[in-house]
């Protein structure tokens, strides 16, 4: 198991205002697998990802990555194992840092030598030439920025890549490019992917297996083959499936709230 999560709980706020964002989630991801975590806003899918990544340290339960149990605070070595790509390529790059500096920083932090060669290699890896190396983010398109963000995640040569809605801020034509890139990188580097998204079609394109979340709970897990066949068991999943197939007046009538 690359990622093993047992009974994860995350609560925000205190006392009467507290909200349970993640409510006893248990799931595991095999090495080399591409796993989709699907849900609507407020379902807790991103919160799970932030707990795994170490960005959120206020959780209970058990999280193990690559066989090592993880506490709330991570060791430096963890970050060489597991990296993350964020949703909004406009917000995930420092506006005053050049691509060069963005990519050089992780190398410096972990004391890896050979920065120039590494940066060139990783830029080529994500399909950006050396011409992009000294540009500022504002000189890049959305798709190029997301490539830089992916390059930053890859520069430490991690085994796990956590993806938080990596294409939902992009146009569909750019989305296709990024999905293709992720598929290629996964194959070339033997990466384990965890993809958080609300878009079932993206999951179907990139993942092997998926879990559906609603209001902090895991509704059901299935393989992407089952998804493709529409073989979902839970009514919530079926509703989500119907809703992603385009507008239909009659179907819209049948929708209900799942709590």
């Amino acid at each position, binding site marked *: 198991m690359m990622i093993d999560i047992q009974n994860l709980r995350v609560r925000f706020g205190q006392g009467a205002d507290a909200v349970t964002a993640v409510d006893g989630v248990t799931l595991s991801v095999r090495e080399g697998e591409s796993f989709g975590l699907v849900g609507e806003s407020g379902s807790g899918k991103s919160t799970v990802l932030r707990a795994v990544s170490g960005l959120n340290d206020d959780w209970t339960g058990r999280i193990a990555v690559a066989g090592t149990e993880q506490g709330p605070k991570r060791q430096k070595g963890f970050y060489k194992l597991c990296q993350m790509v964020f949703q909004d390529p406009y917000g995930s790059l420092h506006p005053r840092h050049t691509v060069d500096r963005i990519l050089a920083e992780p190398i410096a932090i972990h004391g890896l030598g050979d920065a120039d060669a590494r940066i060139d290699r990783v830029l080529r890896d994500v399909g950006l030439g050396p011409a992009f190396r000294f540009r500022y983010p504002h000189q890049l398109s959305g798709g190029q920025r997301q490539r830089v963000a992916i390059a930053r995640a890859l520069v430490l040569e991690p085994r796990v890549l956590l993806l938080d809605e990596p294409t939902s801020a992009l146009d569909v034509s750019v989305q296709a490019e990024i999905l293709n890139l992720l598929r290629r990188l996964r194959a070339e580097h033997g990466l384990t992917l965890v993809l958080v998204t609300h878009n079932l079609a993206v999951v179907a394109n990139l993942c092997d297996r998926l879990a559906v979340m609603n209001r902090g709970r895991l509704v059901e897990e299935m393989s992407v083959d089952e998804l493709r066949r529409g073989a979902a068991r839970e009514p919530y999943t079926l509703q989500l499936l119907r809703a992603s197939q385009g*507008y239909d007046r009659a179907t*819209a009538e049948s929708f209900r709230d799942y709590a």
Partner: protein
Amino acid sequence: MTDRKMADNAPLLEVSNLRVAFPTRTGMAEAVRGVSFTLGREKLGIVGESGSGKSMTGRSILRLVPQPGRVTADRLAFNGEDLLAASPRRMRDIRGRRIAMVMQDPKYSLNPVMTVGRQIAEAYRVHSKAGAAEAKRRALEMLAAVRIRDPERVYDRYPHEVSGGMGQRIMIAMMLIPDPDLLIADEPTSALDVTVQMQVLAILDDLCSQRGMGMIFVSHDLNLVASFCDRILIMYAGRVVESCRASELHAAQHPYTRGLLASLPRIDEPPGDLPVLSRDPMWLEA
């Protein structure tokens, strides 16, 4: 209502060679470059990627292009009336009363320090001589019409106290209360979850057909537009590259449209590389 029925076969909106330009340091930059179409009492979808000029097209009809943008057109006529020649006063009459607009995110498009009820009532009172009590009664009716269960309670809520889906229903109620002829919906469901999105669209759909309104539905979501609208314009770099009936989108001719359709991942297709759109500079001219 009777005027409306009589004018049914005349086009509601005629747009010919619409251009929107913004001055930059190197000269004028055109966001919309010669868009033409006519609209009847139908649901017209305008689709395109970001920066294609689709939103700007919608806003220029209401003459709400932000300063210092310039709007020009050979013809921009609503019910036969030239919108570009209308005085600011006349334009204010047209806004809301005849043409309304719903925007993307109710979190930003509702005034945060006014109760939603007062915002709806205000929309009614600008265009009628109604008193406060009458306006409130109408606003409550309208809230019920967008299927809000407890209108009395929601009336006194502030925008931050309602969910995104409810906020967008409130927005629709506010825009439809003066009974306009044309509704411009600018990505009205992009900020919502899919299921809520469908419910909001159903409300829009019903209200439009009940009232015989025309609708311009601006969106980046090809599938959604194809399933919701009657007719589609596909925009690229400020121009309409193709227009077709929604039901015939799959048979689209233009390589850009075909490329966009192909690059969409599908649930029912096996995983694999998606065809990537390669842009032809010729499309800028066509």
